[in-house]
């Protein structure tokens, strides 16, 4: 029981998932350092990256938790899955749009680098998060289902694995969106 955990048990149970998460995030860091830094507009792009990683964490994480909960309490069905996916996509698009608007404002008043158009600053977060979710949602739904099918608690197993996968693919999708849009 959690309330009787010794410090040794806390370390034993938390450390492996942390290591998995660190590996995925280091891969994300490599993509950032090697692929994003060379862009001429790097100083504007680095403005958006932490917001995208936060957005991923606060949208994909709860999606996984909701799917796990639906599986555990026996309410996982086609309707709940479709509404869950739809809500995740709508939330992402609305928030990505707001990230774009805020980055335009920050660029005008603080960063002051006019090499990326305002339209691009709106398109980059939206395209990035759409690509990321298109990989993340099927992966996490499948992992949740498999974990549940094999008698594991999806809450304990899926989250750390998906944190690593999601952070890595967020940065990859970010890079792909920059290439697609022809960002300088």
């Amino acid at each position, binding site marked *: 029981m959690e309330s009787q955990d010794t410090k*040794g048990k806390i370390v034993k149970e938390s450390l492996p998932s*942390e290591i998995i998460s660190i590996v995925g995030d280091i891969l994300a860091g490599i993509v950032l350092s090697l692929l994003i830094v060379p862009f001429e507009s790097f100083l504007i792009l680095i403005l958006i990256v932490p917001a995208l990683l936060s957005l991923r964490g*606060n949208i994909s994480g709860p999606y996984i938790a909701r799917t796990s909960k639906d599986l555990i309490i026996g309410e996982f069905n086609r309707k709940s899955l479709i509404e869950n996916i739809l809500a995740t996509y709508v939330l992402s698009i609305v928030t990505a749009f707001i990230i774009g608007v805020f980055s335009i404002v920050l660029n005008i008043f*603080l960063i002051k680098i006019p090499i990326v158009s305002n339209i691009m600053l709106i398109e980059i977060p939206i395209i990035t998060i759409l690509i990321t979710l298109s990989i993340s949602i099927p992966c996490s739904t499948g992992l949740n289902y498999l974990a549940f099918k094999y008698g594991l608690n999806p809450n304990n197993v899926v989250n750390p694995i998906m944190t690593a996968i999601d952070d890595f693919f967020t940065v990859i999708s970010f890079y792909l969106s920059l290439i697609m849009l022809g960002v300088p």
Partner: protein
Amino acid sequence: MEYFKKIFKESIIIVIISSFMGLISGTVLSSNERILYSFPIILLILPSLNSLIGDISTVLSSRLTSHLYIGIIPPKIQKSDRLKEDFYGLLITILLSLIALIVLGYSMGIATGIEIVNPVLIIIILLFTILLLFVSMFIFLFISAIFIFKQGKDPNNFLIPFVTSLADFLTPLFLIIFIQIFI
């Protein structure tokens, strides 16, 4: 579409707030371009560092909430054996994770040709950043959990998204402050 509306209504505000804090964090990074170009390894390890602080704070928040609901710790600001056990358990976890992060990060940096300037000093800076953030998050989460619990609310619902966003904002900020102090 009730499930859809419920998810949207409950999530939209906190998702926007956390994205806004992410943008502030991005502004901190963007305004310190000299540091980012001088210490490229910082960019490589930053996502893991953010994630580490956020994950440990989430674990702590959910543990504190469980303890308060079960009654293992009283809703008062006072020391207890349970609290000490959680503190040391998570401190050991975060320090061991930091070691893993440094080993993996530096190995990947060397393998991919990313320059590691002042490696020892960077380790000291990372250690200071992690320790300062861990101790401040622990105190903040303990006091806030008790305060929210006393109001009859579930501390998890507010503290987890808030503290994750706070970690995303404070980690690069502290890292850059320490780099400016030490280098």
